[in-house]
């Protein structure tokens, strides 16, 4: 019978990604309720040394495949290796990150393992001994409670939503052969073009300062960048601003852009179209700065400022700078 809560850890360039600790902490919680073990799968090249980091968050056993064919990430190689170790060990629950890599990988695994998955979950729990996953649908306009009748019961977890909890275990490392046949690997990463700005991606950001049509043009974003620099935020944009060509596509927040869950979302000059509200409604705190008191964004905002953003934002930047210096 299937047993154990498993996670697929994610590393990049030999550094464990934060989502891996979120997965480990969540898996530990579920496993404790079921009285089962937490195992992690870690893939890459030259990564065995970081396996131990997972034990700090409650992982009992880390299955490591250290192989040149696993770096950089390709769907073919990673999905093949994971499917192999999963089939050999038959876990009951398998958690992955709903990161860009996790989305690509987890959905291929759904095919390989012929199982069901709840994607981009904001909560997972055990109810009467059964695994239940809660996920936003329609970009958060409604939620679904998903139950899975096949094993492993897969879920991908939205980054930045699940708490990281320290729970040190005397973890062990188990090496495994990923069983890769080079002839089977049909895709290859030719080039990695790194963004050197050092900004955290919107989907993983703790703080987001976002601008909409009210920014009036691309130049307006300079004041948002100023605020973002002070509080350590990533700058986002509404669809209107992206469609106008003021900001790159990768900055779009909303139903046809990125769905975000920061601790703080500051919406500047954003009226709050339903598509936009859907994409940011799971933010912990929402601030709206808009001169139109009737803007729908104010119905969702924890704090609202009705005024000209070009006057308020620079003042807010100064006020935050002072507070943070204290």
């Amino acid at each position, binding site marked *: 019978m299937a047993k154990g809560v498993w996670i697929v850890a994610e590393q990049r360039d030999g550094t464990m990604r934060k989502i891996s600790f979120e997965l480990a902490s969540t898996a530990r919680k579920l496993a404790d309720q079921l009285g089962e073990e937490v195992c992690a799968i870690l893939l890459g090249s030259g990564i065995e040394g970081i396996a131990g980091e997972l034990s700090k968050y409650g992982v009992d056993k880390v299955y490591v495949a250290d192989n040149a064919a696993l770096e950089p990430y390709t769907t073919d190689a990673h999905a093949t290796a994971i499917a192999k170790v999963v089939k050999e060990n038959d876990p009951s629950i398998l958690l992955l990150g709903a990161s860009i890599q996790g989305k690509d990988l987890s959905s291929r695994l759904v095919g390989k393992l012929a199982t069901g998955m709840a994607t981009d979950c904001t909560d997972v729990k055990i109810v009467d001994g059964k695994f239940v996953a809660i996920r936003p649908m329609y970009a958060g306009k*409604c939620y679904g409670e998903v139950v899975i009748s096949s094993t492993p019961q897969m879920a991908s977890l939205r980054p930045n939503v699940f708490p990281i909890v320290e729970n040190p275990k005397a973890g062990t490392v188990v090496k495994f052969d990923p069983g890769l046949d080079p002839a089977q690997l049909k895709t290859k990463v030719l080039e990695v*073009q790194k963004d050197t700005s050092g900004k955290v991606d919107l989907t993983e950001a703790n703080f987001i300062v976002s601008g909409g049509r009210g920014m009036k043009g691309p130049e307006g974003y300079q004041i948002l960048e100023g605020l973002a620099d002070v509080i350590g935020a990533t700058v986002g944009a509404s669809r209107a601003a992206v469609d106008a060509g003021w900001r790159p596509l990768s900055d779009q927040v909303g139903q046809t852009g990125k769905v975000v869950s920061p601790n703080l979302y500051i919406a500047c000059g954003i009226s709050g179209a339903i598509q936009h509200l859907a994409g940011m409604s799971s933010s912990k705190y929402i601030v709206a700065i808009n001169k139109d008191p009737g803007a729908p964004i104010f119905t969702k905002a924890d704090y609202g400022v009705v005024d000209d953003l070009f006057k308020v934002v620079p003042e807010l930047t100064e*006020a935050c700078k002072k507070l943070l210096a204290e």
Partner: protein
Amino acid sequence: MNIVACVKQVPDTEAQIKVKPDGSGIDESGIKWVMNPYDEYGLEEALRLKEKFGGEVTVVSLGPARVMETIRTALAMGADKGIHICDPAFDGADAYTTATALAAAIAGIPHDIIFCGQRAIDDDSGQVGSVLAELLGIPQLTIVTKVDVDGMSIKVIRPIEGAQLLIEGTLPCVVTAQKGLNEPRYASLPGIMKAKKKPLDTKDAAALGVTVDVKAKVARFIPPPARAAGKIIGGDDPTTKAAELARLLREEAKVI
């Protein structure tokens, strides 16, 4: 080049989504149905590749009778033929079941590239393209913003967190489209007239030889947690308001 574009009909992004009182689904009354925006990017790319290399574009869609309109739209945009997978047995189908049906329909026709949207904006599951690729035993290139085909080789750009990847793959393959790939065309009036004469097959589960086995089920739909309007910060001028906002973020919300 033979290209397949999988399209899904979804509620318009403007639609308010109301959950039925018993939580069994969403209330579909008054909803305007459209082609999933991400599928439109995939279809547009399929049409562009056909214009460049020749061949045929087949559009495949699973869903109830109303889905016919979306297939007609795709035909009016320039696709050559349509396959409509229609069977009440597929109601509530999960990604695996949907992909099984699509794979059965596509396995029987020539295909060099299969386009899907990177996700549908209704169930947001984002799995179908990959499961389809696995069932057909071909590679996947997901969430891509650029496609370049040369002979039997394909190169794509996939943005990831903090980087962009240039990935090479072989045909046949599944490509899932992300916003930024292209600007989808509108159906022209002559296109709409021509679409009426284009072939459109309807197939049910039995015709496809598919057994429906839903593995992930939405047991209950729930409305999102209510988010009430908070405080409007008063004050005489932007400086006072900004200072008060900063103070609240620091002392009350404790986020900065």
